């Protein structure tokens, strides 16, 4: 049995993710124990809330180094929403804040709309299409292109290299990366745990990835 650590750093919807994992037979342990994280076979880094608070919590709970070390082992880390944003070098939410620096790039706020006819409400709270830019990536196995997933966020990631872009999404005529990848690091902006059956498939695929490694 693979050990998957769902990192609890007091920022987020742990139980929804745990329930979704349970549905697809992926056993997770909710933990903030660095030793357990180190010994896990894979990680899930969740997160809902503000970037500065999140990164502060990771530091307070001495989790930044264990996560960075884990990334270097080649074992999978799956970042969801704010969890993905933490992979980046920095965020501009409420001032500039350093992230974990695992993937080159930054987190930016959606631009305000420039026209009155098409307002872009911030945060985005919507089901939206996910266009798969790397069609053979196993995380999106059996998921049709442009499938709908549930998004709730004000900020998006901009990777330095376009090679990190796994999926893209259009929000009120603004195209951004809705999933990113760098070898063993996978991040998605939407909430698979809140995206019905298609979302559960993402967890199923992640499970398969872990077991195949």
């Amino acid at each position, binding site marked *: 049995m693979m050990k998957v650590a769902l990192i609890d750093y007091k920022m987020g*919807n742990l*139980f*929804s993710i745990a*329930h*979704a994992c349970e*549905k697809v037979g992926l056993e997770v342990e909710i933990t903030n124990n660095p030793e357990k994280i180190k010994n896990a076979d894979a990680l899930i880094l969740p997160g*809902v*809330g*503000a970037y500065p608070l999140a990164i502060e919590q990771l530091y307070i709970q001495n989790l930044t180094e264990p996560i960075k070390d884990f990334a270097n082992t080649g074992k999978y880390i799956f970042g969801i929403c704010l969890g993905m944003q933490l992979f980046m070098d920095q965020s501009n939410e409420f001032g500039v804040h350093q992230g974990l620096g695992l993937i080159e790039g930054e987190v930016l706020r959606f631009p305000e709309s420039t026209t009155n006819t098409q*307002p872009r*409400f*911030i*945060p*985005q*709270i*919507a*089901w*939206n*299409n996910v266009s798969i830019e790397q069609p053979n990536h196993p995380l999106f196995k059996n998921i049709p292109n442009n499938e*709908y997933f*549930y*998004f*709730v*966020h*004000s900020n998006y990631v901009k990777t330095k290299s376009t090679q990190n872009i796994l999926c893209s999404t*259009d*929000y*009120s005529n603004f195209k951004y990366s809705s999933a990113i990848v760098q070898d063993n690091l996978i991040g998605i902006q939407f*909430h698979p*745990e*809140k*995206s*019905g*059956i298609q*979302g*559960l498939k993402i967890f199923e695929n992640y499970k398969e990835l872990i077991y195949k490694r």
Partner: protein
Amino acid sequence: MECKRIIPRLDIKGPNLVKGIHLEGLRIVGKPEKFAEYYYAQGADELMFVDAVASLYERNSLHDIIKRVAKQIHIPLVVAGGIRTIKDITEALRVGADRVSINTAAIQNPKFIEEAVRTFGSSTIIVTIEAIKQNDGKYLAFTDNGREHTGLEVSDWTRQLNNLGVGEIIITSVDQEGTGQGYDYQLIKLVSEIATMNITASGGAGSPDDVEKLLTNTSVSGAAIASILHYEIAKELFDPADDYREGNIEYINKIGNTKMFQTTTIPALKAKLIEKSINIRPN
């Protein structure tokens, strides 16, 4: 492109799903868990749970319901009613809510909303406006399910909410609520011209046409719907073996005899909206 959300609204009293008119005269419609699971399977985009009596007493039963539902249902859950403190929000999120909506406590203390936004992020914090149109044509915001007069004008309150960082407004027309006479488009227009965030409209849907009209003619991003979805399926989901000790279930048997509502299902409603080129997530 982002889709408009179809949101079944479930008003909860004790262990039961209820429905009233103008938020009053609540009648039992069935068991909320059954409706929630049914709507999830049918392709609802989000579920809204409203504690119909929360401003008055006990709320543990709602949390028990949310806890059970959240295990089975993998779409966003909004919880509203009786949320007054940061602890209340933490507790609602802990049992499985994704976002919470606040009315009474927001009007009494706008600083509470600022604090909530800082703590949980703007995408978690919604404010419900319960609006009643006055004889002079002005819309006023009420609290406690439309019972308490505040004197606050809806337009002024919306302007204030723009500055508090709230992620969404649920605008409930108490006048239209439960009547099946259509959303209050004038009210929705008033709010959406001022608001800089997402709006969900609630109160008045009496037919699929009403929902179409709402999503075609206004910029709201969510349509809350209750009667026309509940009444379509209430008899089928009713099981006399369920525990109904806390209320009168006579109304369930009378459902269907009403001329006020043209009932529908989520797939049928969504198909109709997609046909009208409205951005909707198909089932």
